[in-house]
């Protein structure tokens, strides 16, 4: 009933290929937009900003970047954390070398550096596939984290070896550093993430998206219909790493505030990969659903026992979180390999024909 499509006819290919061919989708997005633009930021506490709203968006963006590479172009990568690190360190170097630089511009430019590094480490993908490629990206992961630690120039020869986000302003208001308000940072993150998502949706539904998917589904056939596999794979690496790099810059500048090299170690790569898998490989929406689940689960696990009056230690919560996430991944890989996104798609399909399924 809610999702009835009767009466919505398409009279041109343009309207058939519109972003929301069904009116209800646009309406639903409008409601979500209202929540994220006004209701959440105006009602959220500092705790909600820092544990849910901001990290969910940043993780979703990182997973989106990984999804372009792994979900759409079919190139498995385990180096996401390190590529996020490249974005973060590039951003840090830019704002410290050129303090006059607008931090938002720096964040968007930092992706360019990670894109370059991504293409470099993507070159093996021209010869190897699947698990072997995953191992090659794992090499990138270890090498880059080692570089963050050993190359003192990257952290401006700090005694601590960590990078500290300076206080930076845009139009007189602080957007980064300890003095920035969460609500300002929230809107900055929201703006950048929304922009990137929009660009990704367009890329994945257009010609490049089809090139990637063809490369993923059957590379030999793709080459024989005229796809330059090298170009297809390397553009996927470049665009994916760009987005991951921007996510990395946001991760440190808009959320963490400071970073040591081991922040970008392999657990971060896995966390982003889990979000992409649970959310659904080869989807855009899934990254958000996955991020909400992975970021939200520990928060909920922390809050629920407290409100129920149960005494559970924080170590226990940590263990529970790992166990639940682990079993969820096994569950999804077996039952629904296309993730939460597919669940939503099925619900939507059912809703469209409900209550007369025949």
């Amino acid at each position, binding site marked *: 009933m809610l999702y009835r499509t009767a009466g919505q006819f398409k009279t041109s290919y343009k309207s058939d290929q519109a972003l929301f061919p069904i009116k209800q989708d646009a309406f639903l997005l409008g409601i979500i937009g209202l929540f994220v633009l006004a209701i959440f930021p105006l009602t959220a506490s500092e705790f909600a900003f820092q544990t849910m709203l901001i990290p969910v968006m940043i993780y979703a963006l990182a997973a989106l970047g990984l999804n372009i590479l792994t979900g759409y172009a079919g190139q498995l990568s385990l180096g996401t954390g390190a590529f996020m690190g490249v974005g973060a360190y590039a951003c840090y170097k830019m704002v410290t070398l050129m303090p006059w630089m607008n931090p938002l511009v720096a964040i968007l430019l930092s992706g360019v550096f990670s894109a370059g590094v991504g293409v470099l480490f993507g070159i093996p993908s021209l010869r190897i596939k699947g698990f072997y490629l995953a191992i090659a990206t794992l090499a990138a992961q270890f090498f880059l984290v080692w570089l963050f630690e050993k190359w003192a120039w990257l952290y401006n020869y700090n005694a601590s070896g960590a990078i500290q986000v300076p206080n930076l302003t845009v139009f007189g208001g602080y957007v980064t550093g300890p003095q920035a308000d969460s609500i300002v940072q929230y809107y900055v993150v929201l703006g950048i993430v929304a922009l990137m998502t929009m660009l990704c949706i367009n890329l994945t539904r257009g010609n490049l998206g089809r090139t990637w998917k*063809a490369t993923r589904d059957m590379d030999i056939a793709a080459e024989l219909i005229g796809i330059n596999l090298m170009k297809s794979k390397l553009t996927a690496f470049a665009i994916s790493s760009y987005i991951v790099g921007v996510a990395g810059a946001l991760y440190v500048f808009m959320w963490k505030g400071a970073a040591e090299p081991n922040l970008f170690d392999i657990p971060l790569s896995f966390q982003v990969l889990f979000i992409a898998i649970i959310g659904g490989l080869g989807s855009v929406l899934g990254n958000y659903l996955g991020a909400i689940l992975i970021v939200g689960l520990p928060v909920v696990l922390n809050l629920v026992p407290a409100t129920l009056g149960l005494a559970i230690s924080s170590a226990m919560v940590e263990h529970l979180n790992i166990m639940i996430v682990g079993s969820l991944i096994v569950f999804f890989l077996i039952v629904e390999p296309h993730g939460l996104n597919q669940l939503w798609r099925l619900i939507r399909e059912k809703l469209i024909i409900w209550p007369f399924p025949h």
Partner: protein
Amino acid sequence: MKDTEGYVTADGRQIGGVLMEMRDITLKFGGVVAINDISFDIREGEIRAIIGPNGAGKSSMLNIISGFYTPSVGEVWYKGSKRPPMKPYEVARQGVARTFQNIALFEGMTVLDNVMTGRLTHMHAGVFSQALWWGKARDEEMENREKVEKVIDFLEIQAIRKTPVGRLPYGLKKRVELARALAAEPSILLLDEPMAGMNVEEKEDMSRFILDVNDEFGTTIALIEHDMGVVMDLSDRVVVMDYGKKIGDGTPDEVRNNQDVIDAYLGVPH
């Protein structure tokens, strides 16, 4: 098949000059000689069949034409000039499209997207235009969608255009694959066993489509097929291969009466 009998005989149609010529092609894999010194030509507008028993080297020949294999010896001449060694995707961009013996569709995409991939070689919008879905990219998308819809209409697969390919039955998949190849508007279309594994009705449909493609678009077609009835009815000229050698070449009637061909198919008493 009866109603199409009229124009399968080459009499009525004008066949053009040589479009592609294979000159003294030999293909070796290590010590195995898959193709042994074969020459033949494919003329503009004709339906050219390559037949032969299993293992004769037909698919290898098709792979050479589409650039997937490079011949050990010999030259491929295309549109009047010798083709330098090139990558398969470059060959495709020169107007050579093909289908595969084992269906090679992109299973995760819809029928429409699969056929749209056939237009890739005709789309040139940059990354930024595509990311913004504005200007050249959007116009191109609409133009090519229209061309793709014509192919979809032509092959009568309108009803399934939004269905993921993985859900389709075998016969339809074969048709979608033909649609993808046709969408590229190729100069020469290579069909690797287009009727393999089909029932009589599906074969009739596919034969009709092949003839219609040749008739309406004037596309040159080279096909490999095991069903002798189909080959003899469809094709204008036939190359017969056996153990990597060419044993016959000519019109279906000539080939049918060639003693070497009969021996290869029926066996010779030793």
